[in-house]
């Protein structure tokens, strides 16, 4: 288990037209760029920059992130569901890492 793994949680079942909460936790150090006051040496930061939410391959939401967000961020987004399908999140960081995670939902 390393940087970039995630848990995505949605309700197992939802009514048609219901607004659900898509909850996720991403493991990431989220360290900001920092200059040492004594030596002046710069420590490069490592943080998530972008998160996209796809619902049945359609881009629903996009979020730009930067340093200043806590480590292992917890994010919750509202989503109106009309049909059963796959919810996918794609997220990337400033060091070129790119990951994705999916969750499925059934709609009555």
């Amino acid at each position, binding site marked *: *288990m390393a940087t970039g793994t995630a*848990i995505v949680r949605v309700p197992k079942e939802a009514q048609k037209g219901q607004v659900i909460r898509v*909850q996720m936790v991403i493991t990431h150090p989220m360290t900001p760029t920092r200059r040492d006051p004594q030596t002046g040496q710069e420590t490069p930061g490592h943080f998530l920059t972008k998160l996209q939410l796809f619902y049945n391959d359609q881009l629903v939401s996009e979020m730009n992130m930067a340093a*200043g*967000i806590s*480590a*292992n*961020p917890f*994010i919750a*987004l509202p989503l109106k569901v009309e049909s059963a399908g796959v919810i996918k999140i794609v997220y990337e960081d400033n060091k070129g890492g790119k990951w994705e995670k999916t969750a499925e939902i059934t709609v009555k």
Partner: protein
Amino acid sequence: MRKIFLTSAVFGLACAGLLGYQTVKAQDQELSPEEEIRLVQEFNRMMAEGINPGEIWAEMGKEAFKKYNLDKCDFGLGPGKVEGALAQLPRYFPDAKKVMDLETRIGWCLQQYAGMTPEQVKKFATQCWGKSQCMGEYDAIVMYVSMASNGQKVNVNLKNPQVKRMYEIGKQIYYARLGPWDFNCATCHAGQQEVRIRATKLWSADRPGEAGQAVSIFPKYLVRWAQPMTMHYRYAECMRQMRWPTFEPHSDLAVALSAFLYGTANGTEIKVPGIGR
């Protein structure tokens, strides 16, 4: 204002982001201490609603559990059975001829089934102490075993003479004044009067139910360290803050304290992982 913040798309920006928002607000309006405490408690409640990042360790622990041959380990319910294991620990183990709590038992099993020496076990158990954002396998194993007992009630068998003896020793340690500062656990965690460290209310052994609420959520995820804290790490930190002699993980001292705390917490529902600032 907070309601709008809740429902907006950036609701979950981050736990720290939220805290930052509230701290700024607190500074702008110069709130009273009571108001600040209320804000902190609101923050804790909001954190408890969502997914706990500690659950990531539980997934990781499932693999580590097999990797270190712990499915042969008997937690008192049969080899490899972890459901409900935490609820009935500490207990007396005839094979080790000792009373053991969860972490001591894991350490003993690592020696027996994973071929580790006591030094290696100590190094393994303390690999994440004093760090942040550390994905330790030991924490993961403890988290995995603990989370399997979710929803069950703490039920330590205090009728067993060995466990009862450990309970009494633990009680003595809890009220023993030691070290250069003449501290004991009861300095902060006893009495009817409310004790605080900054804005955090401390639990008290004398107020009914509070010990159970404090104990039943361990190991808990700490936002400021971005990693979970196990029970033995909590003991070590408390003892360092009290300037007691250095704490040894998996020692009988820890078992005695666990016997006292979990014995006091009997009947409380286990909710692992907890979350703290």
